[in-house]
């Protein structure tokens, strides 16, 4: 199933990035449950969180299989420490207000959608199979998030101000998604994953169209200020997410739930 010239560890690390992005963003999104600004929104956010947690399960299951050490998807989610997580920093940032949450969803989903779309053509059939399942849900999430970004950006003065502030705050984190390292290069050479520069071009198109329609201004700031999450160098926020998420597994080792 795996291109022979690609070592297991590299593939495993790359699969973790996909799984960790989904888990951590799913976790953040789930924090809204019961606290949404309208019932319909509460339900939609829970749907998004459910989809993302479903995706992380698929990626982790494949990652564990590739690793071949008998770990499970739950082991990967609950028994790794922050430096072993490989998600981008963007997804671990606190939710902020609902505007910041939706702006993050939009910025990440535009990437996630294009990445998954490309992965449906992966040379690895297991990767393309997962991508094909996930991309339908992410397409819907992207539609919903971009629609809300437009409506809130072009809503009231206050909603516009808040959406612009969210964009400005998140912008220095978006560059990490496209910053290829040796792992990304190896995956691209093996034909398993696309070149991130190609994804970035498509992302740029989606983002500039949506921001225009939303009457929002692209920040005049470097997008790659905050990087390193993919290599396990995170913000302080991730440790708290894990402390909360992993509490039961850590406090009662070996118990079944």
């Amino acid at each position: 199933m795996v291109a022979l010239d690609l070592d297991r560890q590299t593939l495993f690390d790359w699969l973790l990035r996909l799984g960790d992005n989904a888990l951590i963003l799913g976790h953040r999104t789930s924090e809204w449950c019961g606290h949404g600004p309208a019932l319909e929104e509460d339900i939609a956010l829970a749907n998004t969180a459910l989809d993302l947690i479903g995706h992380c399960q698929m990626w982790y299951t494949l990652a564990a299989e590739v690793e071949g050490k008998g770990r499970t998807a739950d082991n990967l989610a609950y028994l790794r420490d922050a430096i072993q997580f490989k998600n981008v920093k963007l997804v671990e940032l606190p939710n902020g207000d609902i505007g910041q949450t939706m702006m993050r969803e939009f910025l990440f989903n535009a990437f996630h959608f294009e990445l998954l779309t490309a992965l449906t053509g992966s040379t690895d059939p297991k990767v393309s199979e997962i991508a094909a399942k996930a991309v339908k849900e992410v397409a819907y999430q992207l539609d919903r998030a971009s629609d809300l970004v437009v409506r809130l950006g072009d809503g009231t003065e206050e909603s516009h101000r808040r959406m612009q502030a969210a964009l400005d705050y998140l912008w220095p984190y978006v560059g990490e998604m496209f910053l290829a390292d040796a792992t990304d290069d190896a995956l691209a050479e093996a034909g398993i994953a696309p070149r991130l520069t190609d994804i970035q071009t498509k992302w740029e198109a989606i983002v500039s169209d949506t921001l225009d329609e939303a009457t929002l201004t692209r920040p005049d700031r470097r997008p790659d200020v905050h990087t390193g999450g993919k290599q396990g160098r995170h913000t302080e926020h991730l440790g708290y997410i894990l402390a909360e998420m992993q509490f039961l597994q850590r406090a009662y080792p070996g118990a079944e739930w």
Partner: protein
Amino acid sequence: MYAQMITSEKSSDDPELLAAFQARIDRGERIEPKEWMPEGYRKTLIRQIGQHAHSEIVGQLPEGNWITRAPTLERKQILLAKVQDEAGHGLYLYSACETLGISRDELFDRLHSGAMKYSSIFNYPTLTWADMGAVGWLVDGAAIMNQVPLQRTSYGPYARAMVRICKEESFHQRQGYTIMMKMAQGTPEQKAMAQDALNRFWYPSLMMFGPSDKDSVHSAQNMAWKIKINTNDELRQRFVNETVPQARYLGLEVPDENLTWNEDKQGWDFSEPDWSEFFAVLKGDGPCNEERLGARRKAWDDGEWFRDGLTAYAEKQAARRKAHAAE
């Protein structure tokens, strides 16, 4: 049950119309939104369905408290989906209530101001993971006791909402029981958590049915209108009869020394909950009243700019379409 102590409103309508209305209900006919109904019937239903709707959304909070700490990915998904279902129940019920001529925003205002209540049970804290089991098993279980008969209630939109909701509630109860089973058969610490959860949730669950109302005039009127089907005591007894064997199957002890099988009534005799605690909780002195209502108010207030933004955009779009059409 999610609607407690619903007092009925008096009707000052024409006696002939009232008699004809009652005859329809007695024949088992469904009352639909556009049809004539006594003012008292309408107001009482708003109170009952509204309280039920509020209970669904406030009821998201105690379980929502554990979503980020669920112990496995599967448990996290099941819990998240369950709490999401409760939001969906709220949505159906608010819609049913709106057919009576009150808006969802107005109902929210009444919840936030304290003019309308939600079930007392949601003012208790969820302290360990076993509480996710106990709440599903006992709280959703008690809700089902009340809601299954309400599928036959006289008001059409309410009855139909109940049919949809009941299906999901029985899932919830089974999922809760599964968690209890895992815990009761787990490590000694897990079993202790399960017993502790049962100890804490047993009496508050019995309180969900409300105090005895067999002699209440409100109850008699509501039963005649078929917006209440059974007395509180009947439902409580049914709940105890079903739950005690389930607790024993788990190897857990129901925290009631007086629990004894009564051969004559073919049911369990059990201790009444402490009704002074119930009234204190209803008045606002439960362990989590401030947190629960505070969380609902905060969600609503923080969401104001969001809702306003969407409304403003919709208005701009409508104006743009109009301008475009005029060109």
